[in-house]
């Protein structure tokens, strides 16, 4: 079963980058499904964790390059918060490669497609996200 990827894209830069990838007819895997958010700082840690628990195998957050944020400091807060989340997930033993933060501007359609390609291959290598579902069940226990 192919992996499920959720991508949070900020409306002003990376979502526009995704649209540009579209208009330039570039190609990236269909498992990637994009959720539009006003700014990368709108991506709450609960959204990412909820996605994993509900069956996503990889989550990528895209935002404007540092300094280009439409809301001036949004992406700095996003970076601060998400680096803490990623280091905690790694600490808890979840594969760090299932989450990713990338700055993509409205003019980088090609970069968007390339980033999605690379991310899907990276997550497919890890396969389905069993660790999230089994964290609370003893390896052998079956009470789900």
């Amino acid at each position, binding site marked *: 079963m192919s992996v499920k990827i959720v991508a949070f894209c900020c409306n002003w830069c990376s979502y526009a980058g995704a649209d540009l990838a579209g208009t330039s007819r570039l190609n990236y895997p269909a498992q990637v499904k994009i959720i539009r958010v006003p700014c990368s700082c709108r991506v709450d840690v609960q959204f990412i964790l909820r996605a994993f628990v509900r069956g996503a195998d990889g989550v990528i957050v895209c935002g404007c390059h540092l300094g280009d944020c439409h809301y001036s400091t949004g992406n700095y807060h996003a970076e601060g918060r998400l680096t803490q989340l990623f280091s905690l997930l790694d600490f808890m033993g979840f594969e760090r490669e299932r989450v990713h933060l990338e700055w993509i501007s409205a003019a980088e359609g090609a970069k968007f*497609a390339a980033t999605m390609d690379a991310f899907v291959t990276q997550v497919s290598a890890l396969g389905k996200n069993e660790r999230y579902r089994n964290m609370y069940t003893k390896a052998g226990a079956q009470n789900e």
Partner: protein
Amino acid sequence: MRIGVFVCHCGSNIKATIDAEYIAAQVQQDAKVVHAAEYPYLCAEGGQQKIINAVREYQLTGVVICACSPRMHENTFRKTAAKAGLNPYQIEIANIREQCSWVHKNKDAATGKALKLAKAAIARVKLALPLFAGESAVTKRALVIGGGIAGIQTALDIAEAGFAVDLVESTPSIGGKMAQLDKTFPTLDCAACILTPKMVDAAAHEKITLHTYSEVEEVEGFVGNFTATIRKKARSVDMKKCTGCGACWEKCPSKRIPSEFDCGLANRTAIYTPFAQAVPNVPVIDRATCIKFKNGRCGLCADVCQPAAIDFTQEDAVFTQEYGVIIAATGYQVFSLDAYGEYAYHDSKNVITSLELERLMNAAGPTGGKLQRPSDGKAPKKITFIQCVGSRDITRGKPYCSKICCMYTAKHAIAIKEKYPEAEIEIFYIDVRTPGKGFDEFYRRAVEVYGVRYIKGQVGKIAEMNGILHMQAVDLLENKRFDTTADMVVLAAAIEPSPGAKPLAQMLATPMDTLRFFSEAHPKLRPVESATAGIFLSGVCHGPKDIPETVAQASAAACKAIGVLAKDKLITNPCVAKVNDKKCTGCGRCIDVCPYKAISLESNAAEANPALCQGCGGCASLCPSNAMDLNGFTHKQVLAEVDALCR
């Protein structure tokens, strides 16, 4: 909840790789979807009509449109929904063109993904609350901070449009740096001839109120509803009575105070007007140097003043005023050359900056326009100009090019050669940058007509020995180091924002770059507005620029400000943060994350000001108890979308 789903073919753009009928059929399995249809061109007139009819016929309370990117037609479909009587924020768009049909070739994969995106949009629209754009009143009055050419031009344009303007200037007279200049490039017409008429117009204009010798102390509020506290420093002279006759500063005994206006090259009295054509032409008592204020004796000026306008007991007057918009026009100052010992600027009187040269050349200046060496007053026969002193320097100076030096140095060279044809002028440069209209022709005239010698190289060291300035220099084209001498050296010093800019930016909560220039909202889309709504940028406070550009930008800032003042009501973006005060514990963590300082603590619960909030959502995702939420992108909506996409 009755939802209608409309799948667009977009001609063949979507239809080619996505099976629209299949999606229209599949979404009907959801009990809440009461109508689903597809149409070749939804954005066209026919398509929109189809949506309006369906909304009326099936009494739809939510519409999902599977078509192109919301960045393309979100507003179009919002207007369609409004026409159909539905709240414009109860429609959701699934981007199945740019982000699906155009980027996935395999039909099944594309259709499967499109169905998932449609289901996600349905999940969002089920939770979409009707949103209503807020309104806030607009005070029909503008505040311009900084009385240079930029501030004056902006004030005049706004006043011409019929709105009241307060022009606040910290020095005793408006005019700014331009008043100190002799001639202006590229037309060589005299600065005063352009500036003074504008100053008089500004003073006389019934819509403009001048507040000179005043400073803005505090600014609160938001676009349309600013409240500024302004302190009018005590001039110790009653402005109504004073006729500007000048008897007082004639008689004033303390005459040895270096005049800021003349860059210290001449002296002024304790009671003074900065320059002859000062507007308002009312003197100010400099309390730090006036003998009356130092030890209570003197008071001569009061005695000679017929209209008895002198009033030593005058106090600072602080007043608050409502404004709709604020324009920053704080201008620039010359970069201090303390770090550049090698040019001996502080050691030798004959090494001066270009601004000081402007004063020496100015007819109203300390030498009445005669070019003299500040040390011995003789006319200099050989003058050397050194460019880029402090500019383009990342170690001790400013990393940027100050933009105006190449042109004003060429102007000085021509002006000197016109008055003293026999003078010998050398200019050391890295690159001569003259990009403006008629600028390069002007620079070539200096070289070809007036025989000014441009040397591509630099001066390493200057030392004054018995009146002669000896210089160690290098000529890169000759590729050799040589020594030369000069009677006077003029340094083209860098320019930097005026000291008042940083505190003002903090007061207005407008972003500033690391070099203390105001940051524009967007270099191309919104060049004269700051990121904070209602604050506009005029002149060099935004970045180095010459007078033609300053005036152009000043008018642009005025036009943008008029755009706000002309409206009676400001429509505020409805997708703003809103707090559920039953859940909010008042911990205040959201306050610091807001780039627009839109959040405040009211009786132990946070509150977001809809007029200031731009809807970035940083506060909503920081709030641990989900008390803070963002209209249009609520926690529940995004979670529902995540669930729909992950199932």
